[in-house]
């Protein structure tokens, strides 16, 4: 099995794009807001890897700081201050 490393990397990129898509759909469809926060975290992780792959380490670092650190914490504070599911329980 002699796969060229370039095509292999591109396949992995496609996989990561799929992960972004799946987690974005997950954010949209989940009624449980805690799960939606986790999906948002995964989306930002995958997007950060893609930025790195596109040779933009500074953007990737910012995405990591905002997506994984700040927005997770702020979302959690907001969820705690309001309610846990979209249906209002």
């Amino acid at each position, binding site marked *: 099995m*002699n796969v060229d490393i370039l095509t*292999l990397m591109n396949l992995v990129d496609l996989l990561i794009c799929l992960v972004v898509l799946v987690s974005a759909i*997950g954010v949209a469809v989940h009624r449980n807001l805690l799960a939606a926060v*986790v999906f948002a975290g995964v989306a930002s*992780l995958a997007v950060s890897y893609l930025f790195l792959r596109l040779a933009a380490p500074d953007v990737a670092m910012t995405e*990591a700081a905002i997506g*994984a*650190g700040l927005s997770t914490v702020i979302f959690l504070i907001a969820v705690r201050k309001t309610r846990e599911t979209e249906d209002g329980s």
Partner: protein
Amino acid sequence: MKTLLELALVLAAAAALLSVYRLIKGPEAFSRAVALDVLTLITMPMMAGLALWVRRSIYLDVALVYAVLSFLGVMALARYADRGV
């Protein structure tokens, strides 16, 4: 040696796929959080490998920042479950 590194990349990608399965399926939010943790730990070596591939050491800083901040995110999630952030 290139073959070994390719094998490692394939294994890491397969691991990412498996943990995405758990992310989608996970019955409760905490199983999804475990999947997020594992995904982070898979992505960090992939970022470091990317740094080796393009020979730029600044890529390692991204992995370091990611390690610090994902720890923060998971801790926030755990504290949320306990008594609020």
